[in-house]
Protein backbone atom coordinates (compact mmCIF):
# COMPACT_ATOMS: atom_id res chain seq x y z
CA UNK A 1 0.00 0.00 0.00
CA UNK A 2 1.13 3.52 -0.66
CA UNK A 3 3.43 5.33 1.73
CA UNK A 4 0.76 7.99 2.06
CA UNK A 5 -1.40 5.48 3.92
CA UNK A 6 -3.04 7.06 6.91
CA UNK A 7 -3.30 5.33 10.24
CA UNK A 8 -5.16 5.36 13.50
CA UNK A 9 -3.32 4.61 16.70
CA UNK A 10 -5.03 3.47 19.88
CA UNK A 11 -2.70 3.86 22.87
CA UNK A 12 -4.55 1.83 25.50
CA UNK A 13 -2.20 2.99 28.24
CA UNK A 14 -3.79 6.44 27.93
CA UNK A 15 -7.41 5.28 27.90
CA UNK A 16 -9.51 6.14 30.95
CA UNK A 17 -12.64 4.33 29.79
CA UNK A 18 -14.78 7.46 29.52
CA UNK A 19 -16.48 6.30 26.33
CA UNK A 20 -16.56 9.75 24.78
CA UNK A 21 -15.55 7.99 21.56
CA UNK A 22 -18.67 5.81 21.68
CA UNK A 23 -20.89 8.83 22.10
CA UNK A 24 -19.15 10.94 19.47
CA UNK A 25 -19.38 8.07 16.96
CA UNK A 26 -23.09 7.63 17.59
CA UNK A 27 -23.64 11.33 17.16
CA UNK A 28 -21.65 11.79 13.96
CA UNK A 29 -23.00 8.66 12.31
CA UNK A 30 -26.56 9.26 13.56
CA UNK A 31 -26.81 5.81 15.11
CA UNK A 32 -29.78 4.82 17.25
CA UNK A 33 -29.28 3.88 20.88
CA UNK A 34 -29.44 0.20 21.78
CA UNK A 35 -31.28 -1.06 24.81
CA UNK A 36 -28.76 -2.77 27.05
CA UNK A 37 -28.79 -4.58 30.37
CA UNK A 38 -26.52 -4.21 33.38
CA UNK A 39 -24.33 -7.26 33.57
CA UNK A 40 -22.39 -6.28 36.66
CA UNK A 41 -19.64 -4.47 34.82
CA UNK A 42 -19.06 -0.94 33.63
CA UNK A 43 -18.79 -2.25 30.09
CA UNK A 44 -21.81 -1.15 28.11
CA UNK A 45 -22.97 -2.23 25.56
CA UNK A 46 -21.52 -5.72 25.82
CA UNK A 47 -20.78 -6.13 22.11
CA UNK A 48 -20.59 -4.22 18.84
CA UNK A 49 -23.99 -3.86 17.22
CA UNK A 50 -25.28 -2.52 13.88
CA UNK A 51 -25.72 0.78 15.74
CA UNK A 52 -22.40 0.72 17.55
CA UNK A 53 -19.26 1.03 15.44
CA UNK A 54 -16.86 1.29 18.33
CA UNK A 55 -17.00 0.60 22.03
CA UNK A 56 -14.70 0.33 24.99
CA UNK A 57 -14.08 -3.22 26.07
CA UNK A 58 -13.55 -3.33 29.86
CA UNK A 59 -11.23 -6.14 30.95
CA UNK A 60 -10.79 -6.84 34.63
CA UNK A 61 -7.73 -8.80 35.68
CA UNK A 62 -6.89 -10.01 39.20
CA UNK A 63 -3.83 -8.11 40.31
CA UNK A 64 -3.02 -9.97 43.55
CA UNK A 65 -5.73 -8.60 45.80
CA UNK A 66 -6.77 -5.73 43.60
CA UNK A 67 -8.26 -5.53 40.16
CA UNK A 68 -6.41 -4.14 37.21
CA UNK A 69 -8.51 -2.56 34.50
CA UNK A 70 -7.70 -2.70 30.82
CA UNK A 71 -9.61 -0.64 28.29
CA UNK A 72 -9.67 -1.42 24.60
CA UNK A 73 -11.36 0.58 21.90
CA UNK A 74 -12.91 -2.23 19.89
CA UNK A 75 -13.75 -1.56 16.25
CA UNK A 76 -12.90 -2.46 12.67
CA UNK A 77 -9.10 -2.35 12.39
CA UNK A 78 -9.07 -1.72 8.62
CA UNK A 79 -6.75 -4.56 7.59
CA UNK A 80 -4.40 -3.95 4.67
CA UNK A 81 -5.39 -7.40 3.41
CA UNK A 82 -9.02 -7.36 4.47
CA UNK A 83 -10.93 -10.65 4.70
CA UNK A 84 -14.24 -8.82 4.26
CA UNK A 85 -13.13 -7.28 0.96
CA UNK A 86 -11.69 -10.58 -0.19
CA UNK A 87 -15.04 -12.36 0.04
CA UNK A 88 -17.46 -9.53 -0.77
CA UNK A 89 -19.15 -10.46 -4.09
CA UNK A 90 -20.62 -7.02 -4.69
CA UNK A 91 -18.06 -4.52 -6.01
CA UNK A 92 -18.18 -1.26 -4.12
CA UNK A 93 -20.13 -2.56 -1.13
CA UNK A 94 -16.87 -2.61 0.80
CA UNK A 95 -14.20 -0.36 -0.64
CA UNK A 96 -10.85 1.14 0.27
CA UNK A 97 -10.74 4.88 0.79
CA UNK A 98 -7.90 7.05 -0.51
CA UNK A 99 -6.53 7.13 3.02
CA UNK A 100 -6.31 3.31 3.08
CA UNK A 101 -9.30 2.43 5.27
CA UNK A 102 -12.18 0.06 4.56
CA UNK A 103 -15.50 1.83 4.16
CA UNK A 104 -18.88 0.50 3.05
CA UNK A 105 -21.77 1.51 0.84
CA UNK A 106 -25.08 0.10 2.07
CA UNK A 107 -26.70 0.63 -1.30
CA UNK A 108 -24.33 -1.84 -2.91
CA UNK A 109 -24.46 -4.41 -0.09
CA UNK A 110 -26.39 -7.52 -1.17
CA UNK A 111 -26.78 -8.96 2.33
CA UNK A 112 -24.82 -12.17 1.72
CA UNK A 113 -23.07 -11.71 5.09
CA UNK A 114 -19.85 -13.31 3.82
CA UNK A 115 -17.87 -10.48 5.45
CA UNK A 116 -19.15 -11.61 8.86
CA UNK A 117 -17.51 -15.00 8.34
CA UNK A 118 -14.32 -13.69 6.77
CA UNK A 119 -13.37 -11.03 9.32
CA UNK A 120 -10.41 -12.08 11.50
CA UNK A 121 -11.73 -9.80 14.26
CA UNK A 122 -15.46 -10.59 14.08
CA UNK A 123 -16.43 -6.97 13.45
CA UNK A 124 -19.09 -6.52 10.71
CA UNK A 125 -22.68 -6.43 11.97
CA UNK A 126 -26.02 -6.66 10.18
CA UNK A 127 -29.09 -4.85 11.43
CA UNK A 128 -32.75 -4.99 10.55
CA UNK A 129 -31.94 -3.32 7.21
CA UNK A 130 -29.90 -6.43 6.29
CA UNK A 131 -26.95 -4.26 5.32
CA UNK A 132 -23.36 -4.32 6.53
CA UNK A 133 -22.32 -1.82 9.16
CA UNK A 134 -19.02 -1.20 10.91
CA UNK A 135 -16.50 1.55 11.66
CA UNK A 136 -15.51 3.29 8.42
CA UNK A 137 -13.08 5.56 10.23
CA UNK A 138 -15.30 8.55 9.45
CA UNK A 139 -14.52 8.38 5.74
CA UNK A 140 -16.87 11.36 5.38
CA UNK A 141 -14.74 13.45 7.79
CA UNK A 142 -11.16 12.49 7.00
CA UNK A 143 -11.79 13.05 3.30
CA UNK A 144 -12.20 16.75 4.00
CA UNK A 145 -9.34 17.01 6.46
CA UNK A 146 -11.17 16.51 9.76
CA UNK A 147 -10.17 13.97 12.40
CA UNK A 148 -12.50 11.00 12.97
CA UNK A 149 -15.27 11.86 15.42
CA UNK A 150 -13.98 9.46 18.09
CA UNK A 151 -10.46 10.88 17.94
CA UNK A 152 -11.78 14.43 18.08
CA UNK A 153 -13.77 13.59 21.22
CA UNK A 154 -11.05 11.63 23.01
CA UNK A 155 -9.84 13.75 25.99
CA UNK A 156 -6.62 11.80 26.59
CA UNK A 157 -5.23 11.39 23.07
CA UNK A 158 -5.71 7.66 23.31
CA UNK A 159 -7.06 7.85 19.78
CA UNK A 160 -4.70 9.47 17.31
CA UNK A 161 -5.19 9.93 13.60
CA UNK A 162 -2.29 10.69 11.26
CA UNK A 163 0.13 9.29 8.68
CA UNK A 164 0.52 5.59 9.52
CA UNK A 165 4.30 5.55 9.28
CA UNK A 166 4.57 8.55 11.56
CA UNK A 167 2.32 7.03 14.24
CA UNK A 168 4.40 3.85 14.25
CA UNK A 169 7.69 5.76 14.41
CA UNK A 170 6.44 7.90 17.27
CA UNK A 171 5.36 4.86 19.32
CA UNK A 172 8.63 3.07 18.68
CA UNK A 173 10.58 6.16 19.70
CA UNK A 174 8.84 6.03 23.09
CA UNK A 175 9.62 2.29 23.30
CA UNK A 176 6.04 1.15 22.93
CA UNK A 177 5.29 -2.07 21.02
CA UNK A 178 2.75 -1.65 18.25
CA UNK A 179 0.14 -4.31 17.53
CA UNK A 180 -0.78 -4.72 13.88
CA UNK A 181 2.20 -3.15 12.17
CA UNK A 182 2.71 -6.04 9.76
CA UNK A 183 -0.26 -8.38 10.33
CA UNK A 184 -2.64 -8.72 7.38
CA UNK A 185 -0.46 -6.39 5.29
CA UNK A 186 -0.59 -3.94 8.17
CA UNK A 187 -3.65 -2.89 10.10
CA UNK A 188 -4.96 0.62 9.52
CA UNK A 189 -5.82 0.75 13.21
CA UNK A 190 -2.79 0.08 15.39
CA UNK A 191 -2.79 -0.68 19.09
CA UNK A 192 -0.33 0.07 21.83
CA UNK A 193 -1.15 -2.52 24.49
CA UNK A 194 -0.31 -2.72 28.18
CA UNK A 195 -0.40 -6.51 28.21
CA UNK A 196 -0.47 -9.48 25.86
CA UNK A 197 -2.96 -9.15 22.97
CA UNK A 198 -4.90 -12.13 24.36
CA UNK A 199 -5.61 -10.20 27.56
CA UNK A 200 -7.55 -7.74 25.44
CA UNK A 201 -9.30 -10.47 23.46
CA UNK A 202 -7.20 -9.75 20.39
CA UNK A 203 -5.69 -12.62 18.38
CA UNK A 204 -1.90 -12.85 18.89
CA UNK A 205 -1.38 -13.53 15.18
CA UNK A 206 -4.42 -12.24 13.34
CA UNK A 207 -4.99 -13.89 9.96
CA UNK A 208 -7.77 -14.50 7.50
CA UNK A 209 -9.60 -17.68 8.65
CA UNK A 210 -8.06 -20.79 7.07
CA UNK A 211 -11.25 -22.03 5.44
CA UNK A 212 -11.87 -18.59 3.93
CA UNK A 213 -8.32 -18.58 2.56
CA UNK A 214 -8.80 -22.08 1.09
CA UNK A 215 -12.13 -21.05 -0.43
CA UNK A 216 -10.96 -17.87 -2.10
CA UNK A 217 -7.29 -18.57 -2.84
CA UNK A 218 -7.32 -22.31 -3.56
CA UNK A 219 -10.77 -23.63 -4.48
CA UNK A 220 -11.70 -20.59 -6.58
CA UNK A 221 -8.66 -20.53 -8.91
CA UNK A 222 -8.44 -24.32 -9.09
CA UNK A 223 -12.17 -24.46 -9.76
CA UNK A 224 -11.95 -22.13 -12.71
CA UNK A 225 -8.98 -24.14 -13.97
CA UNK A 226 -10.96 -27.35 -13.38
CA UNK A 227 -13.92 -26.07 -15.37
CA UNK A 228 -11.91 -25.16 -18.45
CA UNK A 229 -9.71 -28.22 -17.95
CA UNK A 230 -12.78 -30.46 -18.04
CA UNK A 231 -14.12 -28.78 -21.17
CA UNK A 232 -10.71 -29.08 -22.83
CA UNK A 233 -10.32 -32.70 -21.72
CA UNK A 234 -13.60 -33.93 -23.21
CA UNK A 235 -13.03 -32.05 -26.46
CA UNK A 236 -9.50 -33.46 -26.63
CA UNK A 237 -10.90 -36.93 -26.04
CA UNK A 238 -13.44 -36.39 -28.81
CA UNK A 239 -10.85 -35.52 -31.44
CA UNK A 240 -8.19 -38.03 -30.36
CA UNK A 241 -9.80 -41.25 -29.17
CA UNK A 242 -13.25 -40.30 -30.28
CA UNK A 243 -16.74 -41.44 -29.39
CA UNK A 244 -17.83 -45.02 -28.70
CA UNK A 245 -19.59 -45.56 -31.96
CA UNK A 246 -22.05 -48.34 -32.47
CA UNK A 247 -21.32 -51.28 -34.83
CA UNK A 248 -17.61 -51.19 -34.10
CA UNK A 249 -17.03 -48.12 -36.25
CA UNK A 250 -14.30 -46.97 -33.90
CA UNK A 251 -11.58 -49.36 -34.97
CA UNK A 252 -10.40 -49.67 -38.53
CA UNK A 253 -10.46 -53.46 -38.58
CA UNK A 254 -14.10 -53.75 -37.67
CA UNK A 255 -13.72 -53.87 -33.93
CA UNK A 256 -12.38 -57.34 -33.32
CA UNK A 257 -9.30 -56.28 -31.37
CA UNK A 258 -9.18 -57.46 -27.79
CA UNK A 259 -6.65 -56.00 -25.41
Amino acid sequence: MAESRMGFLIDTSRCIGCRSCQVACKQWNKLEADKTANKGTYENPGDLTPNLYNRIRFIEKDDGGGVKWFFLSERCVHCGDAGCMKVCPSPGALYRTNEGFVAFNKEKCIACKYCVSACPFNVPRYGADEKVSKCHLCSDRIGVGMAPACAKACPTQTLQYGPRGGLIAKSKASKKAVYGEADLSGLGVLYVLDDKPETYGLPANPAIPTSIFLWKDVVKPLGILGFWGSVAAVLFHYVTIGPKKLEGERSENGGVRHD
Partner: protein
Amino acid sequence: MTRYVERFNTGERVLHWFVTMTFFTQILSGIGLFSRLFVGYFDLFGGGQGAILVHKYAGVLFLASSLLLFLNHRKEISVLDDDDRFWLSRLGGYLSRGHFEENNGKFNAGQKLFGMFMGASTVFLGITGLIIWWPLAFPRGIVQISLLIHGLIFVLFFMLVILHVYLATIGNPGTLDGMIWGRVTRLWAKKHHPKWYKERAGQEKTT
Protein backbone atom coordinates in the same frame (compact mmCIF):
# COMPACT_ATOMS: atom_id res chain seq x y z
CA MET B 1 -40.28 -56.72 -32.26
CA THR B 2 -39.53 -53.03 -32.64
CA ARG B 3 -36.07 -51.59 -33.07
CA TYR B 4 -36.28 -49.91 -29.68
CA VAL B 5 -36.35 -50.65 -25.99
CA GLU B 6 -37.59 -48.28 -23.31
CA ARG B 7 -34.82 -46.95 -21.06
CA PHE B 8 -36.35 -44.12 -19.01
CA ASN B 9 -40.07 -43.65 -18.52
CA THR B 10 -41.80 -40.29 -18.74
CA GLY B 11 -41.64 -39.58 -15.00
CA GLU B 12 -37.93 -40.33 -14.87
CA ARG B 13 -37.22 -38.11 -17.85
CA VAL B 14 -39.23 -35.19 -16.51
CA LEU B 15 -37.51 -35.46 -13.13
CA HIS B 16 -34.07 -35.60 -14.77
CA TRP B 17 -34.69 -32.44 -16.78
CA PHE B 18 -36.23 -30.70 -13.78
CA VAL B 19 -33.03 -31.37 -11.86
CA THR B 20 -31.07 -30.10 -14.87
CA MET B 21 -33.00 -26.85 -14.94
CA THR B 22 -32.69 -26.20 -11.22
CA PHE B 23 -28.99 -27.10 -11.41
CA PHE B 24 -28.28 -24.54 -14.11
CA THR B 25 -30.40 -21.97 -12.30
CA GLN B 26 -28.14 -22.60 -9.30
CA ILE B 27 -25.03 -22.19 -11.45
CA LEU B 28 -26.20 -18.91 -12.99
CA SER B 29 -27.43 -17.41 -9.74
CA GLY B 30 -24.53 -18.66 -7.63
CA ILE B 31 -21.54 -18.09 -9.90
CA GLY B 32 -21.39 -14.41 -8.98
CA LEU B 33 -21.24 -15.39 -5.31
CA PHE B 34 -18.41 -17.82 -6.06
CA SER B 35 -16.16 -15.14 -7.50
CA ARG B 36 -16.31 -11.45 -8.36
CA LEU B 37 -15.04 -12.42 -11.82
CA PHE B 38 -18.62 -13.46 -12.59
CA VAL B 39 -20.37 -10.44 -11.10
CA GLY B 40 -22.02 -9.81 -14.49
CA TYR B 41 -24.24 -12.86 -13.99
CA PHE B 42 -26.05 -10.98 -11.20
CA ASP B 43 -27.66 -8.90 -13.94
CA LEU B 44 -29.69 -11.93 -15.03
CA PHE B 45 -31.53 -11.68 -11.72
CA GLY B 46 -31.73 -7.90 -11.39
CA GLY B 47 -28.70 -7.66 -9.13
CA GLY B 48 -26.94 -9.54 -6.36
CA GLN B 49 -29.86 -9.60 -3.97
CA GLY B 50 -32.13 -11.02 -6.64
CA ALA B 51 -29.54 -13.66 -7.46
CA ILE B 52 -29.27 -14.65 -3.79
CA LEU B 53 -33.05 -14.90 -3.51
CA VAL B 54 -33.28 -17.13 -6.59
CA HIS B 55 -30.28 -19.18 -5.42
CA LYS B 56 -31.97 -19.92 -2.10
CA TYR B 57 -35.38 -20.99 -3.39
CA ALA B 58 -34.20 -22.71 -6.56
CA GLY B 59 -31.72 -24.40 -4.22
CA VAL B 60 -34.58 -25.94 -2.27
CA LEU B 61 -36.08 -27.24 -5.54
CA PHE B 62 -32.71 -28.61 -6.61
CA LEU B 63 -32.17 -30.27 -3.24
CA ALA B 64 -35.60 -31.92 -3.30
CA SER B 65 -35.53 -33.04 -6.94
CA SER B 66 -31.93 -34.19 -7.03
CA LEU B 67 -32.44 -36.15 -3.83
CA LEU B 68 -35.57 -37.76 -5.28
CA LEU B 69 -33.67 -38.69 -8.44
CA PHE B 70 -30.98 -40.29 -6.32
CA LEU B 71 -33.45 -42.18 -4.12
CA ASN B 72 -35.34 -43.48 -7.18
CA HIS B 73 -32.16 -45.05 -8.52
CA ARG B 74 -30.33 -45.87 -5.30
CA LYS B 75 -30.84 -49.63 -5.64
CA GLU B 76 -29.61 -49.68 -9.23
CA ILE B 77 -26.44 -47.72 -8.49
CA SER B 78 -25.35 -48.69 -5.00
CA VAL B 79 -23.83 -52.12 -5.67
CA LEU B 80 -20.73 -52.73 -7.80
CA ASP B 81 -20.39 -56.29 -9.13
CA ASP B 82 -17.43 -58.03 -10.81
CA ASP B 83 -18.39 -56.69 -14.23
CA ASP B 84 -18.37 -53.19 -12.78
CA ARG B 85 -14.93 -53.72 -11.27
CA PHE B 86 -13.66 -54.92 -14.64
CA TRP B 87 -15.21 -51.85 -16.26
CA LEU B 88 -13.48 -49.61 -13.73
CA SER B 89 -10.12 -51.34 -14.14
CA ARG B 90 -10.25 -50.50 -17.88
CA LEU B 91 -11.80 -47.05 -17.24
CA GLY B 92 -14.72 -48.08 -19.38
CA GLY B 93 -12.53 -48.52 -22.45
CA TYR B 94 -12.53 -44.77 -22.92
CA LEU B 95 -8.77 -44.42 -23.11
CA SER B 96 -8.30 -46.59 -26.17
CA ARG B 97 -9.76 -46.87 -29.63
CA GLY B 98 -9.75 -50.64 -29.40
CA HIS B 99 -12.95 -52.62 -28.99
CA PHE B 100 -14.05 -52.88 -25.38
CA GLU B 101 -16.31 -55.74 -24.37
CA GLU B 102 -18.41 -54.50 -21.46
CA ASN B 103 -21.09 -56.39 -19.58
CA ASN B 104 -23.05 -53.72 -17.77
CA GLY B 105 -26.45 -53.81 -16.11
CA LYS B 106 -28.75 -50.84 -16.50
CA PHE B 107 -25.92 -48.55 -15.38
CA ASN B 108 -22.20 -49.02 -15.85
CA ALA B 109 -19.74 -48.51 -12.99
CA GLY B 110 -19.00 -44.94 -14.02
CA GLN B 111 -22.67 -44.05 -14.00
CA LYS B 112 -23.07 -45.72 -10.61
CA LEU B 113 -20.22 -43.75 -9.09
CA PHE B 114 -21.52 -40.58 -10.71
CA GLY B 115 -24.97 -41.18 -9.24
CA MET B 116 -23.61 -41.87 -5.78
CA PHE B 117 -21.42 -38.77 -5.93
CA MET B 118 -24.36 -36.66 -7.05
CA GLY B 119 -26.52 -37.97 -4.21
CA ALA B 120 -23.89 -37.32 -1.56
CA SER B 121 -23.03 -33.92 -3.04
CA THR B 122 -26.66 -32.87 -3.06
CA VAL B 123 -26.92 -33.65 0.65
CA PHE B 124 -23.73 -31.73 1.47
CA LEU B 125 -24.68 -28.76 -0.73
CA GLY B 126 -28.06 -28.71 0.97
CA ILE B 127 -26.72 -28.80 4.52
CA THR B 128 -23.99 -26.21 3.92
CA GLY B 129 -26.41 -24.11 1.86
CA LEU B 130 -28.91 -23.92 4.71
CA ILE B 131 -26.13 -22.87 7.10
CA ILE B 132 -25.00 -20.13 4.70
CA TRP B 133 -28.64 -19.05 4.39
CA TRP B 134 -28.68 -18.06 8.08
CA PRO B 135 -25.01 -17.35 8.82
CA LEU B 136 -25.73 -15.43 12.02
CA ALA B 137 -27.56 -18.38 13.56
CA PHE B 138 -24.48 -20.63 13.56
CA PRO B 139 -20.98 -20.39 15.08
CA ARG B 140 -18.54 -18.57 12.80
CA GLY B 141 -16.33 -21.61 12.36
CA ILE B 142 -19.23 -23.71 11.09
CA VAL B 143 -20.24 -21.04 8.56
CA GLN B 144 -16.64 -20.61 7.37
CA ILE B 145 -16.25 -24.34 6.73
CA SER B 146 -19.67 -24.45 5.06
CA LEU B 147 -18.63 -21.73 2.61
CA LEU B 148 -15.52 -23.74 1.75
CA ILE B 149 -17.33 -27.07 1.35
CA HIS B 150 -20.18 -25.49 -0.65
CA GLY B 151 -17.67 -24.00 -3.10
CA LEU B 152 -15.55 -27.14 -3.30
CA ILE B 153 -18.47 -29.46 -4.01
CA PHE B 154 -19.85 -27.02 -6.57
CA VAL B 155 -16.55 -27.17 -8.45
CA LEU B 156 -16.38 -30.99 -8.42
CA PHE B 157 -20.09 -31.25 -9.26
CA PHE B 158 -19.76 -28.95 -12.26
CA MET B 159 -16.66 -30.74 -13.56
CA LEU B 160 -18.49 -34.08 -13.39
CA VAL B 161 -21.54 -32.57 -15.08
CA ILE B 162 -19.31 -31.56 -18.01
CA LEU B 163 -18.10 -35.16 -18.23
CA HIS B 164 -21.68 -36.42 -17.87
CA VAL B 165 -22.92 -34.20 -20.68
CA TYR B 166 -20.08 -35.27 -22.96
CA LEU B 167 -20.52 -39.00 -22.34
CA ALA B 168 -24.29 -38.81 -22.68
CA THR B 169 -24.21 -36.89 -25.97
CA ILE B 170 -21.41 -36.81 -28.53
CA GLY B 171 -19.19 -39.22 -26.56
CA ASN B 172 -21.69 -42.07 -26.90
CA PRO B 173 -23.96 -41.57 -29.91
CA GLY B 174 -27.48 -42.80 -29.32
CA THR B 175 -27.44 -42.29 -25.56
CA LEU B 176 -29.30 -38.98 -25.44
CA ASP B 177 -32.36 -40.60 -27.06
CA GLY B 178 -32.94 -42.52 -23.83
CA MET B 179 -33.32 -39.33 -21.83
CA ILE B 180 -35.25 -37.31 -24.40
CA TRP B 181 -37.47 -39.78 -26.16
CA GLY B 182 -37.22 -42.50 -23.54
CA ARG B 183 -36.17 -45.24 -25.93
CA VAL B 184 -32.83 -46.49 -27.20
CA THR B 185 -32.05 -48.79 -30.10
CA ARG B 186 -31.50 -52.48 -29.42
CA LEU B 187 -28.06 -52.12 -30.97
CA TRP B 188 -27.18 -49.43 -28.43
CA ALA B 189 -28.55 -51.44 -25.52
CA LYS B 190 -26.66 -54.59 -26.56
CA LYS B 191 -23.40 -52.70 -26.88
CA HIS B 192 -23.51 -50.53 -23.77
CA HIS B 193 -25.68 -52.47 -21.34
CA PRO B 194 -25.86 -56.12 -22.47
CA LYS B 195 -26.87 -57.51 -19.07
CA TRP B 196 -29.71 -55.03 -18.80
CA TYR B 197 -30.74 -55.72 -22.39
CA LYS B 198 -30.98 -59.45 -21.75
CA GLU B 199 -33.24 -58.79 -18.75
CA ARG B 200 -35.44 -56.51 -20.84
CA ALA B 201 -35.61 -59.04 -23.68
CA GLY B 202 -36.55 -61.76 -21.19
CA GLN B 203 -39.39 -59.62 -19.81
CA GLU B 204 -40.66 -58.93 -23.33
CA LYS B 205 -40.93 -62.66 -24.02
CA THR B 206 -42.96 -63.38 -20.90
CA THR B 207 -45.42 -60.55 -21.51
